[in-house]
């Protein structure tokens, strides 16, 4: 008969069995091979964290400082893991982070990868990401906020809670704002349930700085600050190529030239949101390509034509007018 998965309390079990129960009781995966790792290589191999890091390097253009910081953090986590295995370190390190940068600089994308890295290294049990804003946490009337915030926290347990534009939680101009209540509940969980949840706060630099200045409790609990720089035009071109590739499109030579001109023009306009603006521009270009092909009703369209975005599809943008 198979050994029972569940051990009855007080029952005398074989040592092997009680060891698994203990491991499980400690909240980690049953029979975690990571716990016996003694070298960096073993941790890397068993956690397969290198695969995620390589993917991050490959899939995300630019972001050199962010990638560097993530490597540093991963190194720290691997070493901490080894220290924990030898009993040199009892408590899990504080892993709450802030991602600071303008819209469309890849904060959400990197947070998803970060959740995977933390999961592979065993710092969060599930590795899912719950992305929220103020509206998901803060209620409309007295007594509404606490249940709302807790609802979100319960869903995020075992994973990463990503709070976009976190500074909207704090409204100094209104001292009875319910955001403060959400902040207090968050702080409590960030402090007491480090093993259960990692919080990432994201937003613009100046407003995040102001937010941390007026919420020292929050500031002291955030261990890692990552700055997301704006992309260079060259990087945005590359991102455009990469996005199209993943959708099985390509740019013709004239389109490449058009994109090259388009990006600096778009960057000077209002509401420029880095990679997100590029994604939106490409969506519109695809629309124009479709319109162009649609007009040629009788003709058989080749695979190449269906894949190619021409210069005119880009140049029709109002950025050029």
């Amino acid at each position, binding site marked *: 008969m198979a050994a029972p998965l569940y051990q009855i309390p007080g029952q005398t079990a074989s040592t092997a069995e009680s060891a698994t129960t203990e491991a499980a009781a400690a909240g980690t995966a049953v029979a975690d091979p990571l716990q016996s790792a003694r070298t960096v290589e073993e941790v890397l191999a068993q956690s397969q964290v290198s695969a995620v890091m390589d993917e991050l390097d490959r899939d995300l253009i630019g972001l050199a400082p962010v990638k560097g910081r993530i490597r540093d953090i991963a190194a720290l986590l691997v070493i901490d893991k080894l220290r924990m295995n030898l009993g040199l370190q009892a408590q899990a390190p504080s892993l709450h982070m802030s991602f600071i940068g303008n819209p469309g600089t890849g904060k959400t994308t990197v947070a998803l990868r970060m959740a995977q890295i933390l999961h592979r290294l065993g710092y969060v*049990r*599930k590795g899912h990401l719950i992305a929220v804003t103020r509206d998901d946490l803060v209620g409309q009337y007295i007594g509404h906020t606490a249940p709302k915030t807790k609802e979100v*926290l*319960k869903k995020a347990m075992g994973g990463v809670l990503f709070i976009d534009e976190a500074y909207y939680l704090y409204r100094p101009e209104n001292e009875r704002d319910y955001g403060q209540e959400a902040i207090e509940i968050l702080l409590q969980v960030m402090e007491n*349930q480090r093993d259960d949840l990692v919080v990432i706060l994201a937003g613009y630099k100046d407003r995040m700085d102001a937010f941390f200045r007026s919420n020292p409790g929050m500031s002291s609990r955030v261990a890692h600050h990552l700055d997301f720089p704006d992309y260079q035009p060259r990087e945005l071109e590359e991102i455009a190529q990469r996005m199209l590739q993943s959708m099985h499109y390509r740019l013709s030579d004239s389109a490449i030239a058009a994109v090259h001109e388009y990006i600096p023009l778009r960057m000077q306009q209002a509401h420029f949101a880095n990679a997100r603006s590029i994604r939106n521009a490409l969506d519109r270009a695809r629309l124009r390509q479709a319109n162009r092909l649609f007009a040629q009703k009788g003709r058989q369209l080749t695979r190449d034509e269906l894949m190619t975005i021409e210069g005119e599809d880009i140049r029709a943008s109002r950025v050029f007018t």
Partner: protein
Amino acid sequence: MMTNPVGRITQGQFSYLPELTDAEISLQVQYGLNKGYAWSVEYTDDPHPRNTYWEMFGLPMFELRDAAGVLMEVNNCRKTFPQHYIRLMAFDSTRGVETIVMSFIVNRPEREPGFALVRQETHGRTIRYTVRPYATDRPESERGSR
């Protein structure tokens, strides 16, 4: 004769075992989550076996991934009702099942006074028997404190 000298009520799963620790509760909850069940927390101060519908402590929890979230709610309920019975229930929403598939007690009052056997004499020499929990002797608003 005392059949249940400690007076512990035995309802739902695991109720003949010693109290589950939080770690053990977490394991059960995670098992349910892995099967896609939605957990909910309920409480009552009336342990009568026919008292099937307990008060809900918040709504059933859907879309949770990890047991820590459920345990957070259990601890919330324990803080609010330390001297009540609290149970966890798992709902399986699979089409055609749509019912509670797990249920166990995770908190009980310090003192469980048990049940009185009530005899009712009816027509002829017939006697009807029923049980009445001592816990509900006093009005609801005065229970719990003693």
